[in-house]
């Protein structure tokens, strides 16, 4: 399992970073898409989704997102 850091740009030019726990890159994209769907109402349209980093998952692992 890996922790994936996914950078997302929406069609309205706003951006987000989504962190997901998954076993492969394909599944990480799918999970990130799912998280995004749940998160926004009304829904936002994704323009670009990019995995920029992955780390082996373990207790205490994470990413810092600069705001």
């Amino acid at each position: 399992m890996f922790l994936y850091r996914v950078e997302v740009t929406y069609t309205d030019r706003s951006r987000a970073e989504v962190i997901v726990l998954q076993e492969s890159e394909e599944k990480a994209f799918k999970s990130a898409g799912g998280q995004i769907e749940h998160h926004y109402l009304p829904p936002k349209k994704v323009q670009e989704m990019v995995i920029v980093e992955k780390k082996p998952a373990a207790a205490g692992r994470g990413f810092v997102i600069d705001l």
Partner: protein
Amino acid sequence: MPYQATWAKTPEKLNKTELLKLEKDGLDIIEDIYRYAKTGYESIPEDDKSLFKWAGIYEQRPKDGHFMMRVRIPSGRLNSDQARALAGIARDYGRDLVDITTRQAVQFHWLRVEQFPDIFDRLAKVDLSSFEACGDCPRTIVGNPLAGIDPHELFDTTPYVKQLSDTFLLNRDFSNLPRKYKISISASIYNSAHAEINDLAFTPAVKVIDGQEVAGFHVWVGGGLSAKPYLAKQLDIFVVPERVVDVAVAVTSIFRDYGYREKRHNARLKYLVADWGPEKFQEKLVELTGELPSRGEDKIIGWNAGYFTGVHQQKQPGLSYVGLCVPVGRLSGTELEELARLADVYGDGSLRTCNTQNIVIANIPNEKVEALLQEKLLERITPYPKHFTAFAVSCTGTEFCNLALVETKERMRWLAEYLDQEIELDEPIRLHMVGCPNSCGQRQIADIGLQGSLVKTGDGMKEAFDIYIGGTLGPNARFNEKLSGRILADDLPRVLVALIGFFKETKERGESFLQFVQRVGTAAFQEQLDAVLAQLADAR
């Protein structure tokens, strides 16, 4: 006297790896590996696998029982017997593959645990070691590959490299540091050991002491790349060569005793140096070493970026060294064996690995150089490489690395070859490609750095890159800056041709890529990138 692990008193403030290291020193794994060689891969517990690093071993991708091994080559000094031993290991166990790393080490792939006892034995017979090539300990000592033969060195650093290596290798006083720890030492006035990106670096300096000019070192602490790059800070001290080991031991002790062990991602020495500042760090250092003279005169006047390709005169009259380009650091064991033969036939068996992933044959009498240049091997591993191939560096990438997002090595090799066909240039452009932010391929110090990512597109998942421009070390050291806009891997050739073409058409005579970036600014490159990305989007 053995040290006290003071951090053990507050286990609640230690990360999981630290707790593991308190139970079992990383070096204990070496004996266990002999046992696992008999009991097999399946018998290795996960915790022990993570300690394999202290033996210089990592599991390679995918985790199916194959391993990568890194061998320390302090300052890149290799004799022909050692080269033959390395070649033999690659041939017999490692699918004939040898990679030279950006810290002058050599890496094998495809190894299995049953083979390690024989490999350790073969290495020991020629005075080489993989131990502590990885792990939370002092790694191989990086140095000037030309130490002892360099017309541009203040003095020969070979003895000090050896003293440092002998002091730290398998020394249990320093085998449990908070994190990896990298030392560099060089007396080259062109900073060929990349001082600013090491945890501890010694660089050439002079100082008048008691009316006499003394040659020695300045000291830098806290440098490192990875996801949070940081340039080392120079201390206000001058170190005579005889005290290099004392100072290194003191700096390393400070790291061991005061370095951060709560979170692994801020455990490198750079975090302590950033918190304390160089002044406080120096106060602590002097408590351990006693008074040291203040800084003298810095002797570094530029940065050669670690490149030595071509035929060059040594400081010894009548002798030359020949710097050979190993494209992206990869060669076969068979080629390494042939290099050993050439080093014996034409020189005195001396080879040197470079932090640019290249190799040097040293000590060749001038009258033998011409014959060496006619050798078949030098058609591929050549002293006269094409422009981009000559200055291309790459990390391992998805081929073997578990953290990689994209393929790098073969792509960088191909891309450099492509650019060599497309563009002719007078000035070198150093291209570095990495497969993730950890930056083993030193993306931050490249003229043009390429960092991989994965993009989800309508056609599925695609490899892509971010572009960074304008990195350098030496005087005015700075990391490169990111351009915004992600480039699909398939578009990289076109984008690079556009950006480099812009440099070629607009630069002034004799202007280097770095000088050009400093003059026109990153914004000018951003405009070019935006334009070419817009063209690519229109064409889709």
